[in-house]
């Protein structure tokens, strides 16, 4: 089992090396392998498919330019989480000045007849997208990517205590709003 995992990791690193060497098929394979990670962060940040797709494409275009600086597959995952979160925070700040609800958000608010669990999840996602961008980033990385506070701190370049404080505030805010 461990041997199979080691072989898989080796083949992923080989793919990375081929992509860095300019092989478009290897790069396309990297995109396919990590598209869920990148797209999901952006989707949970904005609940807007168009914005999520645009930001995700931007992340992969940036990856194409920086691929030679990526050393291993775990470094690639760290890089993707970092760049995606930072792009999301920047975009949220920019969007804050031109605030208008997206069609996806409107559609999600009024989805009648959906099962209660899905409605609850949709409500929770809506509450997450309504939070300040720093809290949103911490919540998405913590619960989507299952990163611990020190990993989040490394990805966002913040002190660990700030991450813990953001997480605490975000959970308290969500609990308050879910109860009312």
């Amino acid at each position: 089992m461990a041997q199979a995992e080691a072989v898989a990791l080796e083949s992923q690193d080989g793919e990375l090396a081929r992509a860095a060497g300019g092989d478009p098929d290897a790069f396309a394979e990297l995109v396919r392998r990590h598209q869920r990670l990148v797209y999901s962060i952006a989707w949970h940040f904005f609940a807007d498919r168009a914005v999520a797709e645009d930001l995700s494409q931007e992340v992969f275009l940036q990856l194409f330019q920086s691929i030679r600086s990526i050393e291993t597959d775990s470094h690639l995952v760290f890089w993707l989480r970092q760049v995606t979160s930072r792009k999301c925070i920047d975009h949220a700040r920019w969007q804050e000045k031109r605030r208008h609800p997206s069609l996806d958000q409107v559609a999600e608010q009024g989805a009648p007849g959906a099962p209660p669990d899905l409605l609850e999840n949709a409500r929770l996602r809506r509450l997450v997208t309504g939070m300040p961008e720093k809290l949103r980033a911490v919540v998405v990385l913590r619960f989507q990517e299952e990163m611990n506070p020190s990993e989040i701190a490394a990805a966002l370049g913040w002190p660990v205590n700030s991450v813990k404080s953001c997480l605490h505030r975000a959970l308290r805010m969500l609990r308050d709003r879910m109860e009312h």
Partner: protein
Amino acid sequence: MDDPIERRLKQALARTDPPQGFAGRVMARVARGEAPRPEPSRWALFGRLLAPAWRTALAGALACLLLLTAGLAYREHRLRLKAEAERARAEQAREELILALRITGVQLSRARNIVLRQMDFRKQQGNVRQ
């Protein structure tokens, strides 16, 4: 993650698939040689100020600022020149006053000597008569 809200968050924020053909669209942009958009930064405001619509206003504001600065500097220069001229006049008046006092002192000293000499002469005349 025993907290119910944390369990629900994990469920609600599970990874999701991008729309069909996502990787193909990325690869098409890569093939076209597209570069990612530049990061928005604090220089974006500077960039906006350099946009044609803002250039005239910015040039006007800079010209006003320049005129105001030049006006203030000229006023400061004039005040400094005036103060220097007054100081020079005061210095000259002081020197003239000292000279006048010296001349007066010399004249008074001469007059005193003449009076003393006259008094000595009269004393000697009186002694001769006696």
